[in-house]
């Protein structure tokens, strides 16, 4: 056997292939630089316990401010009627009970909602990233 190797011209253009490879490399670098940090940010955010703590803090602040404002309004109305704006024991008790109930509800809602959101992001928000990393994007 032997003889000269058969010669065949390539079916693609090396220069064009290199240009396209360079372009893909540049785009991938851009993705890593600008977009990948947002994926990390989202993952960090949903795993961050401070998110739930902040939601609960805001819920409590909302209850506090709502009751402060409601009480102020009630006291102004009384003043307009020429009555004392001071609360009696029964009113104190009623408002304290109402405020506690509102606080419990708001806190529970904030915690449950934050947990739901976390699960939702885990199961859907990052699914497209998984598809891309597996070459299906």
């Amino acid at each position, binding site marked *: *056997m*032997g*003889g000269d*190797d*058969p*010669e*065949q*011209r*390539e079916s*693609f*253009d*090396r220069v*064009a*292939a290199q*240009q*396209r490879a360079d*372009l*893909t490399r540049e*785009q991938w670098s*851009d*993705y890593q630089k*600008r*977009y990948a940090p*947002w*994926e990390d940010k*989202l993952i960090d*955010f949903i795993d961050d316990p401070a*998110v739930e703590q902040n*939601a609960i803090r*805001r*819920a409590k602040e*909302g209850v506090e*401010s709502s009751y402060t*404002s*409601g*009480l102020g*309004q*009630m006291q102004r*109305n*009384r003043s307009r*009627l020429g*009555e004392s704006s001071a609360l*009696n024991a029964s*009113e104190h008790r*009623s*408002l304290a009970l*109402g*405020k506690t109930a*509102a606080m419990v*509800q*708001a806190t529970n*809602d*904030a915690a449950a*909602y934050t947990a739901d*959101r976390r699960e939702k992001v885990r199961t859907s*928000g990052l699914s*497209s*990233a998984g*598809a891309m990393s597996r070459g299906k*994007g």
Partner: protein
Amino acid sequence: MGGGGTKYTPKEHPEERELAKIAKEQWEEYKTRYIPIENEWMNTVSGLNDEAVHSAVAGQASAEFMQAHPDRVRQAQAGMGAGQASRRSNMTEAVNTSANNLSQIKNKANLGITDRYVRGMESIIGIGQGQETSGLQGMTDVAEQAVQGRIENSKNRFKRDQGTLDGFGSLAGGSTAFGLAKRSKP
């Protein structure tokens, strides 16, 4: 065994070079036209969960609730003709009901703002992967929904256009979906 494999020699394919050149031109145009918009959108999303936004939405939801639901205020004043004990009881009940509703509305609005931030991050990730994304809700929508979820007959609806915010999200999502479709498949 003698001999070797096939010997390949480079060949110039003008049409492939042209396609590669066009792909490069598209990318250069994309960098000029769309990347600044994307970056601007990223900056916007970065601030969506700031405390100032939470305060603003809580205030907006409160104002809308007060506008939409003045009945409690009237109820508090309804005991005018009744005895003082009855009036005081009505007022306390009204404060409890109103403050409880308002608390839950503010809570819902705050959670909605955080949702909006998460959706903003998801939209950026989607844009990065060349997917079409939709615009985010405006802050007013979040406040309004918080109230609507609590009472149905809201009488005064905030309908301010959140065009700028929605616009950036939609534009960045839609246009880059078009542009980036070429990124992974140039």
